């Protein structure tokens, strides 16, 4: 059993498992599943200032998001360290591997490209763009759109929200621009 779990999980297993979280959270708490609200709650809890967006009872509104986010930390440890090894290589397609090699990536070990996403590379142009700018835009955009992959692409489309479809189109406009027009210039 453990041996099976320690293999990479195929997409047709992982997808339905993630999808089940949507009805579960509705059934258990009457809530719409989403992750990025936790970023707003972290701001409201630490540095709300006088900003209206952060003036609310984050304990009451956000405890469940923050509990789930904390669980993800532990889940990441179990999935990444107990059920996998950090030296495993993700079996991406040959075409992607060739494209990334052309960009200058040679280390395909682990979940992130260690050459460019590490503390050593943090203050280089690729490090700053991938880690700091990338992270910033994820947080800014998720709150601007009022949801991220979980809240819009999965929960929103599951409940047939037209607005979520528009958000997902935005995800792809932005992602395609980053991958095809920004990344080639920073490596």
């Amino acid at each position, binding site marked *: 059993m453990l041996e099976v779990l320690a293999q990479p999980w195929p997409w047709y297993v992982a997808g339905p498992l993630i999808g089940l979280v949507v009805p579960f959270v509705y059934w258990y708490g009457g809530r719409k599943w989403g992750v990025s609200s936790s970023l707003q709650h972290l701001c409201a809890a630490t540095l709300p200032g006088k900003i209206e967006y952060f003036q609310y009872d984050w304990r009451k509104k956000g405890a469940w998001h923050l509990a789930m986010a904390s669980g993800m930390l532990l889940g990441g440890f179990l999935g990444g360290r107990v059920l996998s090894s950090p030296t495993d290589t993700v079996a991406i397609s040959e075409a992607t591997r060739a494209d990334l090699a052309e960009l200058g990536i040679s280390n395909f070990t682990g979940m992130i490209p260690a050459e460019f996403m590490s503390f050593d590379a943090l203050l280089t142009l690729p490090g700053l763009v991938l880690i700091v700018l990338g992270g910033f835009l994820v947080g800014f955009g998720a709150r601007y759109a009022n949801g991220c992959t979980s809240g819009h692409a999965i929960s929103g489309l*599951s409940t047939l929200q037209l607005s979520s479809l528009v958000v997902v189109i935005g995800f792809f406009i932005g992602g395609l621009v980053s991958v095809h027009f920004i990344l080639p210039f920073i490596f």
Partner: protein
Amino acid sequence: MTHTSEISGATAAPAERQDSLSVYFLVGVFLGIIFLKSEVASWFRIQEMFRFQSIHMYGIIGLAVAVGAVSVALMKRFGVRTIRGEEIAWPDAASMRPQPHHILGGTVFGLGWGLAGACPGPLFALVGSGLPVVLVALLSAVAGAWVYGLLKPRLPH
């Protein structure tokens, strides 16, 4: 993080009462394991997705939506209530209408997703998997949320 003040407004705010935080923690553990084991948290997989070079991410998101949509439709069809017997407040038509902030925010998010190679859930999971440098990305995401809050009154919505 307990639930002590249920004196007033208990009926006005049905989504804010005492469900157990440990259950949500376990949901997070479940998701964190999946994000790592299905490689959703892999920067390389996100690159592959935005290059349309594998079914992997499309299969995961597509099947997640399919299972979510069928479940939600069944729950609506059979009038399923929450575990405490409350009616579920499904998203209404007003939240369905696309607004400028949907396409604008979605595009900004996509720009970040293509660079950082992780959306918020996987960012938490990657930190837990022992990649402290991803904490910098996560804190940058929190900073992004903060700056959004600051600029919100001046942004088109």
